[in-house]
């Protein structure tokens, strides 16, 4: 009886400590990490109270095991990156020191700003992946979301408590509608979504230029040209108000991103909707045999993926830029794919991989400024990390080889 009473209290503690620690950590108050660690410890205590000791140990072990491949992949990529730097005449130790210090300490706020849109596009790609679909055109849905957000941000003059949710919802819905056509073509004609969403992404990129001129952008003026700014009232709240020492640009979009990631994880693991999506992605024939409509779930998955990618655009417009830039190769789509693949399409994992990606970019810029090592090295390190983590089979292949050699050696000894 005592246990049952304790459990909700502990769970509340987990959320409270976690949230406080997270916010502190985001605004560069790094002692927030202790709160987060305490929350993690409390969570395992909660699991221990809910089940038995063995299950908890198995869970912890599984958690650690899931981390091994990423850790190996990242370490290997760091070593390969160092070799490449040595070959091209840079000092890798100096470079990495600047990269890590810039990305995770000095310019941490830029890392967070970089990571926020990637959480949304990463979730978008990951969600479609769960249904066995490849939303390669997330960048297009990003632009659609950003365009709607800019339009509403300029014209919607109401108290922000209404407008911000409306803008998020509307922009996401229009971005979802933009993915309706690829979904329709996929279901009706079998046209592969890799081609259709990619083409739609190119279309959205160019339409955004038209939109920007329409919204006051002057193509004859500065480059890149921009729309008129959105109303001040429609800006996302920023951390500066609560924590005066924080960089003034750091906005609360990251919290929305994390919340959405948790929500997506909940949908995928705990609801019928998510179950059907995963069933279709895992084995379409088996899903159909169970009475799950494949076509319906293709629509759901691509529309929801479009919605999520659209939120990335809203987040940039309301949170960071407060206007829409003409930027024809922002790369949120491709980086979203990278982030989703790195996280093995796990929505919670996407948060961390997006932050890693954002930090590598921010650290790279810091490195280029301080120790004059081109930040383009970061692009290569990103590519190698991605390749080494995605190609999971390499590890079992290498493992089998080693096992085989040992076996042969022992047989030879006999």
């Amino acid at each position, binding site marked *: 009886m005592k246990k049952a009473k304790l459990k909700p209290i502990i769970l509340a503690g987990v959320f409270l400590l976690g949230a406080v620690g997270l916010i502190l950590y985001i605004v560069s108050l790094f002692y927030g990490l202790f709160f987060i660690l305490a929350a993690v410890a409390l969570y395992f205590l909660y699991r221990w109270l809910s089940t038995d000791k063995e299950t908890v140990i198995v869970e912890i072990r599984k958690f650690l095991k899931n981390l091994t491949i990423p850790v190996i992949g990242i370490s290997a990529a760091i070593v390969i990156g160092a070799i*490449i730097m040595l070959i*091209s005449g840079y000092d890798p130790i100096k470079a990495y020191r600047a990269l890590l210090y810039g990305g995770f300490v000095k310019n941490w706020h830029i890392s967070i700003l970089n990571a926020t849109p990637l959480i949304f596009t990463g979730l978008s790609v990951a969600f479609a992946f769960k249904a066995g679909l*490849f939303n*390669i055109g997330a960048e297009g849905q990003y632009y659609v979301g950003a365009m709607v957000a800019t339009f509403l941000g300029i014209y919607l003059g109401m108290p922000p408590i209404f407008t911000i949710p409306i803008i998020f919802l509307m922009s996401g819905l229009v971005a979802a509608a933009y993915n309706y*056509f690829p979904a329709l*073509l996929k279901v*009706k*004609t*079998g*046209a*592969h979504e*890799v*081609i*259709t969403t*990619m*083409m*739609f992404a*190119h*279309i959205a990129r*160019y*339409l955004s*230029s*038209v939109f920007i*001129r329409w919204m006051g952008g002057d193509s004859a003026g500065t480059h890149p040209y921009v729309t008129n700014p959105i109303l001040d009232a429609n800006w996302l709240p920023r951390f500066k108000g609560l924590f005066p020492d924080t960089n003034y640009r750091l906005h609360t979009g990251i919290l929305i991103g994390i919340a959405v990631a948790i929500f997506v994880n909940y949908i995928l693991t705990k609801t019928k909707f998510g179950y059907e999506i995963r069933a279709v992605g895992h084995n379409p024939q088996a899903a159909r045999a169970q009475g799950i409509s494949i076509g319906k779930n293709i629509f759901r998955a691509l529309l929801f993926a479009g919605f999520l990618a659209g939120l990335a655009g809203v987040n940039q417009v309301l949170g960071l830029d407060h206007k829409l830039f003409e930027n024809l*190769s922002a*790369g949120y789509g*491709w*980086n979203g*794919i*990278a982030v989703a*693949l790195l996280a093995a399409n796990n929505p919670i994992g996407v948060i961390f991989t997006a932050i890693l990606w954002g930090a590598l970019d921010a650290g790279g810029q810091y490195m280029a400024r301080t120790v004059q090592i*081109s930040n*383009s*090295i970061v*692009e*290569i390190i*990103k*590519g*190698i990390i*991605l*390749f080494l983590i*995605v*190609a999971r*089979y*390499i590890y079992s*292949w290498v493992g089998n080889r080693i096992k085989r050699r040992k076996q042969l050696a022992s047989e030879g000894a006999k």
Partner: protein
Amino acid sequence: MGGFFSIFNEDLLVATIRLSTPITLAAVGATVCERAGIVNIAMEGIMIIGAFFAVVVAYYTGNPWLGLLGGVVAGALFSMIHAVATITFHLDHVVSGAVLNILSFGVVRYLMVIIYGHPGTTEPIAKGLAEYKFAVPLLSKIPVIGPAFFNQTPIVYLSFLTVIFFLIFLKKTKTGLHVRAAGEHPLALETIGVSVVKMRYLAVLVSGITSGLAGAYLSIENSVSFTEGMSNGRGFIALAANISGGWTAIGSWLASLFFGFADALQIRFQIFKVLPIPAEFFIIFPYVATVLVVAGLVRRSRPPKAVGMDFMIEREED
């Protein structure tokens, strides 16, 4: 309206051929690759790698022919990563392709900064392949199609040869048959003692070579320098051309011609301002056309049965 119809002239056909060349090359590569059962969405990245290395080699040697070779070799090598990842390491084809596209941006950006000192656009090469334009005697005098098909630059001719070669290769040769079997029924191929793995490696290599050549066309024939992102979705359009063309070399070529035509048309629409609307509405025309064609034609043909499927065989000695 006289102005409108005046854009439909001989030059439009010439431009159609020129603009379709990179798509044709990559689309034929995609055909061979998919017939062997490997989906290659990395062609966009291979094109970028090919385009970049073609410029670098041509820049340093001063010889665009060596540049062409450099682009092809670089594309072939880069495509081998896709082959290793998908065939040997059994990685999902689309995932591997996406990763290689991302990697290609990184590799090119890095090397560009190392070699040229800045990202963006490279320094122009001294002499591009466009200067080697030559007219085939007699044939180039044929009205309308003569100038378009027989008075062109080297890689355009190479693209015609590529189409003819792989048309014959896939249909008439034994290796071509084996390649097709690798994508249709790999187990049967393995049973008659032909290695599926080898055939699939060969097919990916072909797509790497043709995509590298397509890249070289973009950078050292159609232009004299490399610009980041210059492939601009052509690798994906080539995939669409292959599918619309029903997984045949000749079909891929015809579909590529259509996409080249769409592109040529939009450029003329822009220049002659035939309609008072923003230029971007014309620029998106080829992309819209791609979607429509893929949606309209995809049902007509059947993809290779084992396309995108992993092939794993348990062997005693492995």
